[in-house]
């Protein structure tokens, strides 16, 4: 096909519909550019006007989220957000790779990690930590076990090989995720604030350099197409649209980027993610209010006969796009060569608003940047209360009435509460030598920063959390609880939240009840942010998470970064020694609604969640945080899933020591009821524990049993050894 033919051929509206555009969206494109788009242009529009790139069903809703904060250095709109900690920029962002992982879990999860790493690298930050939030169907299904095993292997493969520690994460199982698993990956990076890189292309005449891996046909329409429609029976056919990751290539790209930025050789930098060259170039041009000329004939290809539209939409991994002053091009190419990274000068910054695509100098596409990036129609949602019975009750495997000790052991042995060690051990959590608290050691991961002028090492704490069951029961309160629980995790280590990133995993927003979940959950997150006084620094929306049996549980995943003054003064989740005072901090009115026990008893996630008292919760957070920072508290663990009995059992198991406590009641509700983010188990020296505001002494550590008694002398007694063996085997048995 000759180039003039490429440029003139008009695929038409039916082809546009095949590519995921609606007829009215196609008409709008024709109206905006004054003609029908050719093949290259249509391919570009279909991707940039997809849900994944344009957020056309969520943008209006997301405006509710607070995006300003005192410590914010970079916010929404850049490749990742960043906050200031101890004079450094801490960049972070969470992103989903759900649909690719449902189709091919190893590569889907691996490239999810690779993609979020590149977002942080593009800022000029060195990635220092990864966290992952995973959701699968019931592990009794072979498919769920396969997805779990391969997704974990994929995350480890990429993170371990590139030398970025995976320091935390969470895994939940629920039947609603059976055909639509969730793989959300969060990356945290560190940079000097004045070296943070923007993505805006500027300077007419500056060159555009593409570097990294070769461009191939892999992943054409991958993330952007997969992420913008419901999964169906023909998913296997979509396997070729899943990208293939190469962590070695990305490791070289990482070092190249940091050296280029460190040597002040770049004007702007952007990673190539979903929609490849199309979205990266359009975003850079739009941010810089300039045009770009790109010659696809200069792009190094894996397959020689690729069409211009294929080159523009390829989602080959491990590629970056940089804008470089002409005088520095040679130096840039030299750094790339040193790291054995392929680089090509493929175009230049132009005046105006045109994204011109050329092949060997001949124009094959020409569209206004603003039309591509800003003119996609935004849709109003039609939010309605989700109907009762939206989520069928899970199969019951525990009786309504049961012996409390047996119930506790059964909960701990269940896949949702069992020890995550068999998964965490597959991740390198210590590379880069700053991990002060590894997974399982504390409620949040603690990462030491360089020694300050005062000789003290400050630190950051990071955590990721979500609870779809509670959001299903009440989207606003459930989402607010997720924010509080994440902040509670940080408080346990002595850290105070500075910013939040979220990944909103929901079903099809064109359905009113899903829209209702989304709008209410965003409201809950916004309320949580406002209460904590922190901004949302960025994030990602993953919609259309529905399978043949219905939508996933609404699953907003919250990632948080907090600061602490001294890395050497923090806590652990486990009891540290015998003879320490055990106390509760925080008001606590738990209920069994949407709890882990309710699910095990076969109850759908429905009912009234306990009323939120955000002020009281934050007072408890502050009390615990200060007590940890002062050294008074050596053990701190928030009471979340599985309730107080589970929290105490976890403290015992992780510390290999028992405890004896007395609480008001040992009813199921008191032992296993949930009200996350509000209450903590703490332990330490008795005089110091008594001095914590709001602390309620309940007992003392010691012995080989967990003993929970009420005031009438009724007791639940469970051997720590039994707790440990229940926890240890609960997830392990589902792994190969």
């Amino acid at each position: 096909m000759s180039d003039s033919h490429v440029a003139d051929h008009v695929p038409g509206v039916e082809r546009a519909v095949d590519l995921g555009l609606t007829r009215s969206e196609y008409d709008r494109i024709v109206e905006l550019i004054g003609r029908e788009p050719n093949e290259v242009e249509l391919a570009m529009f279909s991707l940039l006007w997809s849900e994944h790139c344009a957020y056309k069903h969520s943008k209006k809703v997301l405006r509710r989220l607070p995006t300003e904060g005192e410590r914010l250095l970079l916010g929404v709109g850049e490749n990742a957000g960043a906050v200031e900690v101890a004079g450094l920029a801490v960049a972070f962002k969470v992103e989903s790779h759900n649909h690719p992982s449902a189709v091919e879990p190893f590569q889907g999860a691996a490239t999810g990690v690779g993609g979020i790493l590149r977002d942080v690298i593009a800022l000029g930050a060195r990635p220092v930590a990864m966290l992952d939030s995973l959701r699968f169907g019931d592990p009794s299904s072979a498919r769920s076990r396969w997805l779990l095993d391969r997704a974990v292997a994929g995350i480890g493969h990429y993170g371990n090989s590139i030398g970025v520690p995976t320091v935390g994460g969470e895994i939940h199982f629920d039947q609603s995720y059976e055909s639509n698993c969730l793989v959300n990956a969060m990356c945290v990076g560190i940079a000097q604030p004045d070296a943070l890189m923007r993505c805006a292309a500027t300077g007419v005449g500056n060159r555009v350099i593409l570097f990294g891996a070769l461009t191939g046909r892999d992943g054409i329409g991958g993330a952007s197409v997969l992420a913008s429609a419901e999964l169906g029976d023909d998913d296997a056919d979509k396997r070729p649209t899943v990208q293939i990751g190469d962590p070695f290539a990305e490791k070289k790209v990482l070092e190249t980027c940091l050296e280029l930025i460190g040597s002040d050789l770049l004007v702007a930098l952007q990673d190539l993610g979903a929609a490849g060259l199309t979205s990266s170039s359009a975003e850079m041009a739009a941010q810089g209010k300039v045009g770009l000329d790109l010659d696809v004939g200069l792009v190094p290809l894996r397959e020689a006969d690729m069409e211009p539209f294929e080159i523009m939409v390829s989602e080959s991994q491990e590629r970056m796009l940089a804008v470089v002053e002409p005088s520095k091009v040679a130096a840039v190419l030299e750094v790339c060569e040193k790291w054995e990274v392929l680089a090509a000068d493929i175009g230049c910054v132009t005046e105006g608003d045109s994204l011109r695509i050329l092949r060997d100098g001949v124009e094959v596409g020409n569209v206004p940047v603003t039309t591509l990036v800003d003119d996609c129609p935004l849709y109003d949602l039609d939010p309605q209360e989700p109907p009762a019975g939206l989520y069928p009750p899970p199969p019951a495997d525990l009786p309504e009435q049961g012996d409390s000790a047996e119930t506790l052991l059964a909960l701990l042995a269940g896949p949702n509460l069992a020890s995550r060690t068999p998964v965490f051990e597959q991740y390198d959590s210590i590379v880069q030598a700053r991990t002060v608290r590894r997974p399982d050691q504390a409620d949040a991961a603690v990462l030491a920063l360089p020694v300050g002028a005062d000789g003290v090492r400050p630190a950051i704490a990071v955590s990721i959390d979500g609870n779809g069951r509670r959001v299903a029961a009440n989207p606003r309160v459930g989402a607010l609880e997720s924010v509080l629980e994440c902040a509670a995790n940080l408080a346990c280590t002595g850290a105070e939240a500075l910013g939040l990133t979220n990944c909103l995993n929901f079903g099809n927003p064109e359905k009113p009840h899903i829209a209702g979940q989304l709008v209410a959950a965003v409201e809950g997150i916004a309320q949580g942010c406002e209460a904590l006084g922190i901004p949302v620094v960025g994030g990602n929306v993953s919609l259309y998470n529905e399978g043949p049996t219905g939508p996933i549980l609404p699953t907003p995943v919250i990632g948080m970064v907090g600061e602490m003054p001294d890395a050497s003064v923090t806590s652990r989740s486990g009891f540290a020694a015998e003879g320490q005072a055990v106390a509760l901090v925080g008001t606590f009115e738990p209920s069994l609604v949407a709890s882990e026990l309710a699910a095990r008893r076969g109850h759908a996630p429905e009912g009234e969640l306990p009323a939120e008292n955000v002020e009281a919760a934050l007072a408890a957070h502050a009390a615990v945080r200060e007590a940890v920072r002062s050294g008074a508290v050596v053990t701190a663990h928030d009471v979340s899933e599985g309730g107080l009995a589970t929290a105490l059992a976890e403290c015992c198991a992780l510390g290999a020591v028992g405890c004896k406590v007395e609480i008001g009641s040992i009813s199921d509700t008191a032992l296993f009821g949930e009200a996350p983010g509000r209450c903590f188990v703490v332990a330490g020296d008795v005089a110091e524990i008594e001095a914590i505001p709001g602390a309620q002494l309940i007992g003392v550590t010691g012995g080989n049993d967990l003993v929970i008694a009420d005031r009438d002398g009724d007791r639940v007694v469970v051997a720590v050894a039994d707790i440990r063996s229940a926890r240890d085997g609960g997830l392990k048995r589902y792994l190969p």
Partner: protein
Amino acid sequence: MRIGVVRFPGSCDETDALDACLKVADAELLWHGSTDLGGVDAIVVPGGFSYGDYLRPGAIARFSPVMEAVAHFAAEGGPVLGICNGFQVLCEAGLLPGALLTNNGLRFLCRQTDIVVERPTTPWTAACDAGERLSIPVKHTTGRWYSDPETLKELEANEQIVFRYAPGQNPNGSVGDVAGVCSAAGNVVGLMPHPEHAVDVLTGSADGLKLFSSILSKGAVGV
């Protein structure tokens, strides 16, 4: 005393190893593409995934220009320490006996582990006592050290087994619980555990520092 830390494309632990070395001596990175060792007194071949571990861990790195120089350096008695991927590279290069196979569990495994010093008379263990237990993490997929039974006997007779995992703690199924070995001359040592990730109690343990401080012991250099 100046220690050189080799940097391959795909090395991940080289800066951590450099920082560990800097706690006891001067240290610098050595680029894989150069045969110039810059006159260093000792060399660390660090962990990571050199050249992406393509083909087989260490199989490509052992052909890099810097390894030519390292082989010369070792032949002249210079102290060389290979950690994890570095151990794999040194085995591939024939500078250390045995081979590293996939873990028994077939998976990457990251775990704090106790190892026991069996031979304190190498330049990298001179600060340790025989039988001393060190808490040092492992993190690898291909860490199951293997040799045939005859070779193992020979190595044991020659006192070339430097570290073993503490009883019950072998994370990968290595023959004889071997965690680290040395060359016949004793100047080249390799181990799967990561001493550079055990140089500060803040991040878990400082036991690994002993390997680096050993190099300052009398006679450690120029064995």
